[in-house]
């Protein structure tokens, strides 16, 4: 991998964001809307129920913020790819000496930058608006953050591979794919409270361990180390599978001659 090429590709995305304030607004708009809605619901429930139940609803805010980290990581990869499709720049990239790994790495970095911006905005609003300090998760925040980002990257690569294969008809998947997982990765509730048949499915995905871990840390201040180990191990597996899928689909589009059709459509 050539870091000069990765930095050039990242520079291109930074130019794009700097030249388009609406893209920057979009980064924060929906997370802020979500946070305000959930924050108000939390305050409402806290005021109208007993204190113990009120403390539980804080899980909603924590879940929402961490979910958004994963979502933004996935978007960083998928939307960066779509930016090249929308601007008909994809051919220029694919006929330049850019390896798939360099291209994907650049989208990972953009994903990370998007997460940082979103996380700072959400942390600020949740603290000043709803007295929810995301840093109560202490140092656990770092492994939570990293694991969710890794899974977001995997989903981003899968989204990109599907768009490469099916063209812009599959564009909506760039937004939809993370939400296929939302019901089963226990973002807002315990795995134990899910229907029995769905629990084994939930444990197949790294975010489940992270959201369970978050609730455990918020409730008792303790974290199950095994959970972090499982999440990290599964992330390695999913990243490898997603990377393989992306390269396989890219080669398939070359074999079938779809790449140029797609890149100039």
């Amino acid at each position: 991998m050539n870091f000069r090429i990765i930095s050039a590709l990242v520079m291109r995305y930074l130019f794009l964001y700097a030249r388009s304030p609406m893209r920057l607004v979009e980064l924060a708009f929906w997370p802020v809307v979500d946070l305000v809605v959930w924050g108000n619901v939390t305050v409402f429930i806290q005021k109208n129920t007993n204190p113990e139940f009120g403390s539980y609803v804080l899980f909603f805010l924590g879940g929402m913020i961490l979910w958004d980290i994963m979502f933004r990581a996935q978007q960083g990869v998928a939307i960066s790819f779509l930016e090249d499709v929308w601007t008909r720049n994809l051919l220029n990239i694919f006929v330049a000496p850019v390896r798939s790994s360099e291209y994907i790495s650049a989208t990972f970095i953009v994903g990370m930058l998007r997460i940082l911006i979103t996380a700072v905005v959400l942390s600020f609003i949740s603290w000043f608006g709803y007295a929810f300090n995301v840093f109560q998760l202490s140092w656990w925040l770092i492994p939570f953050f990293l694991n969710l980002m890794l899974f977001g990257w995997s989903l981003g690569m899968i989204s990109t591979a599907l768009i490469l294969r099916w063209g812009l008809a599959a564009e909506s998947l760039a937004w939809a794919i993370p939400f296929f997982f939302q019901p089963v990765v226990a973002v807002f509730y315990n795995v134990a409270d899910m229907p029995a048949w769905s629990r084994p499915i939930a444990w197949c995905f790294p975010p489940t361990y992270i959201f369970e871990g978050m609730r455990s840390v918020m409730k008792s201040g303790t974290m199950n180390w095994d959970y972090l180990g499982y999440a990290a191990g599964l992330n390695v597996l999913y990243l490898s599978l997603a990377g393989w899928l992306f390269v396989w689909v890219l080669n398939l589009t070359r074999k079938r001659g779809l790449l140029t059709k797609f890149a100039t459509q």
Partner: protein
Amino acid sequence: MSVPPDTREVILEAIDLTREFDGVKALDCFSFKLHRGEVLGLLGANGAGKTTAMNCLLGLTLPTSGELNAFGMPLQANRIKILQRANFSSAYTALPGNLLVWQNLLVFARIYGVPNPKKKIAELMELLEISHLNKSVTGQLSAGESTRVNLVKAFLNDPELLMLDEPTASLDPDIADKVRKVVRKVQRERNVAILYTSHNMRDIEEVCDRVIFLHKGKIVCEGTPSDIVAQSSSDNLEDVFIKIARDGELLDEPKKVSAV
């Protein structure tokens, strides 16, 4: 007429290149050599196989069978090394429209590892007479301006192999003339091998040393533009083009009009 074989280094070579789409051969045993410092025109009607050939040569589409070598190396196995020494410009691709011209060019200069990129960009923009567009928004350029910005991108890494896909499409005669002159100037000064496609026969006659006419994926004839016209019953290259597009052949028997 017999022309001695070209002894210059072979930069790009296709051997029996075949590409099928759903059983239809878009390229059928297509073979050619492009030498250092040569401009080779790839001609043919829509659907003749030019774009498929170009896409195979760029590594964007894999051939069904056949061999492709550039700089003496198999293309697929050495794609990155080869692309580092090559470049491409097409009327049908664009640089991101929402970036400024200098931003787009700087990104590609960094991708190609161009030393002192700002100086290089300024020199090339001056050569193409578009220095005043440096801070323009790429998406707001006219077709002529956009083509010349694409050419700056294509010249950034001083390529030894340049593939130009209809570089004068949709340009007015004045700008098309300027583009042709710059391509020729750069090619002569740097001894670049150029593969050139166009539907504009004026382009071809002015820019290309040699042309290949394709019809239904097969080579119908190849040679210098003047030799091809001389060997045909046509008055000019445009008539040759029309005859091949309609009849699929230049003469009664497909004939190589000059040895290469």
